[in-house]
């Protein structure tokens, strides 16, 4: 191994998953769950650590909600074990599990007011009345719902219901809070605010959060680590930056953000430089990429390049520049902060190139049907084998 590559723009000192001595709070061991003939979860093994904000990300029907429900106790695994704090949860009914869930529909009890909804879980344990009262008030204060304690759920807005559901789920101080698409019903602006609030709350309470979502931005914003799921199996578990900058597969690269994929074959691995040469029909000169764990020559690979890591120009770059593609602008999407160019390289082959609009004035704006040269640095692309 030549060189370790640092990935992503975020540095964090919280990384229990990297510590081999750390004991996970929750553990899935080869868990499989079938519904009739359909396999919802296929042999998933996963560790979630204390104080971690963990996201299960995937399209609908990928098994992420089933995985969460296995932990809550609403489903029983057909194979494998689910452990919490080292204890096997098999045979433990939902009402005896020290986890609480916030439901996608919020599932607020319509016949109880806000106060009684939050108090519901506390009343199940023989907790003194005064203590229940104090705890509920503290929870409502925390989610800024104290003034609406006497309201019924049907008299609240969507955002208010969401807050009550959150307060109810954390009132019992669970060892782990499960959030099933908690922000799916909120509008975009409110959702973004809530994401940061949720993160702040999690840090303040020191709780372990497990969130299920299909929204990649949401997962990337809130989570310490993300597990990307596909057809009941986990494709990759990593920090948001690693998932985005070093995806493990074409599926992950494509699911999170935009990506251009080039089919290629490993030509030559430069010893000592972590550099690989790739031969590809799409670029006669071949691609150059950085990889500290390159596959053997002649392996079929895909080079994944994010649109924002490419540069676009109206003149050809100086000779010797690696990774140059020639094409013609087919369409342009302007979104204010970014401009996305759709560039035709050949018949039926279009790539996306994005440029941050860092300055207001541009010498030579690029227009439709302009002939352009697209290039990217060797460290911009990721070599994928699957």
């Amino acid at each position: 191994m030549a060189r370790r590559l640092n990935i992503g723009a975020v540095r964090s000192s919280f990384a229990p998953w990297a510590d081999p001595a750390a004991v996970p709070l929750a553990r899935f061991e080869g868990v499989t769950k079938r519904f009739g003939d359909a396999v919802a979860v296929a042999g998933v093994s996963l560790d979630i650590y204390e104080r971690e904000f963990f996201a299960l990300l995937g399209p609908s029907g990928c098994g992420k909600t089933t995985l969460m429900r296995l932990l809550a106790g609403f489903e029983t695994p057909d194979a494998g074990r689910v452990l919490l704090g080292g204890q096997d949860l098999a045979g433990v009914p939902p009402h005896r599990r020290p986890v609480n869930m916030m439901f996608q529909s919020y599932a607020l009890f319509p016949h109880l007011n806000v106060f009684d909804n939050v108090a519901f879980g506390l009343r199940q344990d023989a907790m003194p009345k005064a203590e229940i009262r104090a705890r509920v008030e503290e929870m409502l204060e925390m989610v800024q719902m104290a003034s609406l304690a006497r309201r019924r759920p049907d008299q609240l807005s969507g955002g208010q219901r969401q807050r009550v559901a959150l307060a109810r789920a954390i009132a019992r101080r669970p060892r782990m809070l499960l959030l099933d698409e908690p922000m799916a019903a909120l509008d975009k602006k409110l959702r973004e605010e809530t994401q940061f609030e949720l993160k702040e709350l999690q840090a303040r309470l020191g709780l372990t959060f497990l969130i299920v979502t299909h929204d990649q931005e949401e997962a990337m914003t809130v989570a310490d680590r993300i597990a990307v799921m596909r057809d009941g199996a986990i494709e990759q578990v990593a920090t948001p930056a690693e998932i985005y900058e070093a995806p493990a597969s074409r599926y992950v690269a494509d699911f999170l953000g935009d990506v251009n994929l080039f089919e290629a074959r490993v030509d030559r691995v430069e010893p000592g430089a972590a550099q690989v040469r790739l031969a590809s029909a799409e670029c006669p000169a071949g691609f150059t990429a950085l990889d500290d764990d390159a596959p053997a020559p002649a392996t079929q690979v895909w080079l994944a390049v994010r649109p924002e890591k490419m540069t676009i120009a109206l003149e050809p770059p100086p000779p010797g520049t690696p990774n140059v593609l020639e094409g013609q602008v087919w369409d342009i999407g302007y979104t204010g902060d970014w401009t996305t160019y759709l560039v035709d390289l050949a018949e039926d082959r279009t790539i996306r190139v994005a440029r941050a609009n860092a300055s207001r004035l541009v010498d030579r704006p690029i227009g439709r049907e302009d002939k352009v040269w697209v290039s990217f640095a060797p460290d911009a692309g990721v070599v994928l084998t699957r």
Partner: protein
Amino acid sequence: MRRGPSWFNIASVGLGLAFLYLPIVLLVAYSFNAGRLVTVWSGFSTRWYAALIEDEEMRDAAWITLRVGLISASAATVLGTLAAVGLVRGGLFRGRLLFAGMIYAPLVMPEVIMGLSLLLLFVALGQARGFWTLTAAHTTFTLCYVAVVVQARLVDFDRSLEEAAQDLGCPPWRTFLTVTLPNIAPAVAAGWMLAFTLSLDDLVVASFTSGPGATTLPMRIYSQVRLGVSPEINAVCTLLIGAVALGVALWGLVGRARTRAPV
């Protein structure tokens, strides 16, 4: 184009409604007749209501009907609700279809057949017929109606509410009592009222399954009518209509509360 209903529409609706309700209106009106003849109006009077209060047999019959109704409706509500929960929440247990069919069959079964079969059962068991056989028979057939009403509500009921309760540490049976039942209460109440009303005006099943000393109001009325209609019968029928109308109105009110329930 002409708007609104045509003369034909109005006439046909009017005639239809008249055919349905005119007899009832006549019956109610003649209960206030002063004379003994049921078809000749001879002035307003409440003497038949007074006579009714004096009539011990009628009073006994009314009291029995009320008791049978209250007991059988309550028992049917408990059993019918449990049957509905079993059907909706039990998942795909073996024989579910058969169970559902057996719950629904009495809704379409001719009452004569049900009455007769219950009679044969009581005879075979050597059970003397009376108040309790009648109550059991009414419980049996009104149970099905309760099950249907409650089931309709349970199907709409958000399952995640029960899951949320259990997630918050509530054991299953307590979840049923503190979360499920309060939310399906309108349907349970409507089922009870339906069962009570059905028991109140049942004649056929009661005739087969009742015995001496347990004559219900519809049975008493029917046997008296065979001897000739007296305005006293009109009076008791008017009261019965009032009771049923009240039941239906309450059912409707409760039903409206149910639709108002939040999603």
